[in-house]
C-alpha cells in the first residue's frame, strides 16, 4: 500500500486512496475528500498547462505534520494527502485531500481545514503557461 502522504509526478486514483483510508478502520462513517484540478482558464486567460515546483523534502514533512495535526484536531480515524508536481493540463488532477471520521461533520470540516492549511504551509509553487507566456502564480491574500 502506498504512503498516506505523497508528492509524485504520476496521477492518482481516488478509489485507491479511499480504499486505503477505509482499510484503517471499520468505524469510519464519513469520508470527505477535496480534489483540486487544473482549470483551462484563470484570471481571464486561457491556460495551456500548469507546472509545479516544490521544495520536496520540506513539502513532504510539512504535509506529514499537516496530516497529524488534522487527525488530532478533528479526531479523525485516518487522513491522506497526495500532491502532484511536474506538468499538468486542463482537467488533470493536482491534489487530493481525504479525511475519514466516525461522523460526517468532522470529515468535511477536516477536509476544508487541510486544503486551506496546505496552501499556507507547504512549499510548492505553480506556474501557468498561457498564450502570452509563463506566469508564476501569486496567490491572493
Amino acid at each position, binding site marked *: 500500500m502506498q504512503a498516506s502522504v505523497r508528492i509524485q509526478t504520476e496521477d492518482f486514483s481516488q478509489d485507491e486512496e479511499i480504499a486505503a483510508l477505509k482499510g484503517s478502520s471499520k468505524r469510519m462513517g464519513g469520508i470527505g475528500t477535496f480534489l*483540486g484540478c487544473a482549470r483551462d482558464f484563470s484570471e481571464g486567460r486561457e491556460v495551456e498547462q500548469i507546472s*509545479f*515546483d*516544490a*521544495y520536496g*523534502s*520540506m*513539502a513532504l*514533512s510539512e504535509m506529514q505534520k499537516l496530516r497529524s495535526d488534522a487527525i488530532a484536531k478533528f479526531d479523525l480515524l485516518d487522513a491522506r494527502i497526495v*500532491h502532484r508536481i511536474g506538468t499538468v493540463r486542463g482537467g488533470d488532477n*493536482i*491534489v487530493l485531500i481525504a479525511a475519514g471520521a466516525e461522523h460526517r461533520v468532522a470529515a468535511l470540516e477536516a477536509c476544508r481545514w487541510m*486544503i486551506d492549511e*496546505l*496552501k*499556507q*504551509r*507547504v*512549499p*510548492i*509553487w*505553480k*506556474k501557468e503557461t498561457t498564450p502570452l507566456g509563463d506566469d*508564476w*502564480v*501569486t*496567490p491572493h491574500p
Partner: protein
Amino acid sequence: MIKVLFFGPIAAASGARELSIAHSPGMTLGHLKNMLAAAHPEAMRLAVMLAVNGEHARDLAMPLSDNSEVAFMAKFSGG
C-alpha cells in the same frame, strides 16, 4: 559552506536553483539574506518565507551553522 536553495519564481528570477556561500563565524540568517539581496535583488524581493534545514525560520538574528541548508521562498501557491 551554506547551501542556498531557490525554487519556482525565485529560481526563475535569479536563474539559479542552488548556490554555495562561504560560511563565516557569527554569520546570521540576516547576513546571508543581505548578501543575496545585493547579488539577486529582483529574486530576493520575492523571498517572503525562509527555511533553515527544512524548518520555517522567522528570526533574522538566527545564527547559521556551517553546512546549513537555507531556502529563500516566494509565497506558496500549491494546492
